[in-house]
């Protein structure tokens, strides 16, 4: 059994095969692999005995259930009104310059992906971003680079 097979199998064993467990299972795969590959979707469909089209259809509805390969750290910069007013563009610019990729792209070492997202709920501390599940607020072009440098230099 390869890693993904075991992952899916364990998640389905933990949550159950009923349809209402699909989201937690998809989320569990995202936690480990950062995206839902076609293989993962097929394995989930098989283990849960539901059509792969249903799994794929459900996954693609949710912005956090990516079906494109993502880096180890997914950066989601809020682009909704207050963050946009408080300098979101400069933050994006600083991240793009630092990582040398554009929004929507992943670094060659597969460590970072930059995305924009809708309201994160930190409007009073804008601009804000998520790095996977961690929240960073009141960003400046300098602070965002410091934060990402720490992620890059870990290990």
């Amino acid at each position: 059994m390869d890693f993904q097979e075991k992952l899916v199998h364990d998640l389905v064993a933990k949550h159950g095969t009923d349809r209402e467990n699909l989201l937690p299972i998809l989320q569990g795969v995202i936690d480990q692999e950062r995206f839902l590959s076609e293989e993962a979707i097929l394995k989930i469909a098989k283990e849960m005995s539901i059509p792969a089209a249903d799994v794929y259809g459900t996954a693609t509805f949710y912005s956090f259930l990516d079906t494109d390969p993502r880096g180890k750290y997914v950066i989601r910069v809020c682009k909704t009104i207050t963050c946009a007013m408080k300098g979101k563009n400069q933050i994006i610019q600083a991240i793009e310059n630092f990582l040398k990729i554009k929004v929507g792209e992943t670094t060659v070492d597969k460590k970072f992906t930059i995305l924009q997202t809708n309201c994160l709920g930190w409007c009073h501390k804008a601009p804000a971003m998520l790095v996977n599940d961690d929240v960073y607020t009141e960003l400046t072009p300098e602070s965002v680079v410091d934060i990402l440098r720490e992620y890059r230099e870990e290990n």
Partner: protein
Amino acid sequence: MTTTKKQLHRIDLIFKNEQDCKEILRNALARSNQEVINEMVNSGLKGRGGAGFPTGLKWKLTAEQKVDEKFVICNADEGEPGTFKDREILTRVPHKVLSGMAVCAKIIGARKGYIYLRGEYKFLVPNLKKELRRFHDILDELGLDFRVEIFMGSGAYICGEESALFESMEGKRGEPRNKPPFPTEIGYMNKPTVINNVETLAHSYTILKYGAKKFRELGVKDSRGSKVFSVSGDTPIPGIYELELGMSVQDFVDDFGDGDTKAVQVGGASGFLVPRKRFGKTSIGYQGKLTGISLPTGGSMMIFNSSRSMYNVLNNYLDFFEEESCGQCTPCRVGCQQLLKGIKAVKRGEKPASYLDKLLKLTDTMKLTAKCGLGQSVANSFSSIVENFREEMIY
């Protein structure tokens, strides 16, 4: 610019540090269901997520269903732009929310509850789980057969719409259902379900502790009690504030504005933009006040000063709606796309200014024909911005 600041009265009920939820629960559970329902109805509490349905009535209607299995769901899918108060409530006073859920469960006859937490707030989970363990111990002690679980969302604004939330919990695309039937009859897993906003549940704790009468002393007719507001934008003091309902936008701006406030967005992107000339004539609360215009809000208050382009604001909202529309019904899916394309075309001069009137008609159609609140409410911000700031849309 110098202004003499008039401060609105700050209320300290929701966030008050009260650790007596065992006592509150014990007392509430000892009362008859009818008594508690009456208390809730008499309080005048209306849903704090924004829609404003009377909470007591919701509990009563669900309690009346003769079905074995029922559910209580706490809607923590806080996604409306400019809203962030539910996270604060769940961080600081989660036990009040849980107490509200437990009392509701006892009254309607539910053994299972869920907190549907937006994916963006996943970092709250460890703390919430700790709270849940403590809370379940209290329930065991009091002999109430009720358990609460956390269900995580995955980044979809529309799942804050109650029926879309049920679909999501059932493992499906978060596409809203037709109503009726309402959740009080057919909700999660097609069972009668009470679904309340985080803040609504926290208020129910206050009502159970201090009584309906005390709660009613706050606010105005048809808009009773206090409300937690999320204040952001061009303000020197952004943050979370508990204020009385019924205040005028002018009083709000005098307190929170930066002295140069041009407009206030009440109720997030799905709410209304109030321009300076209407500050005095508009109040914050539910419909039904005797004079003037009263605007409901889930608590989102976004302030714009005169440096802001209202075209950019509308463009940002439409970009949001176009992405967050679930795509299920045509008026919303195509409507949002066309509105966004339309205002850009007018701005670039590819369409005449009169095209804005066509777009306004389109929002009327969406209001009438979209399946859920998302598509229906795009008209609110669109018309209030285009009608009040037409020049900014064109030049």
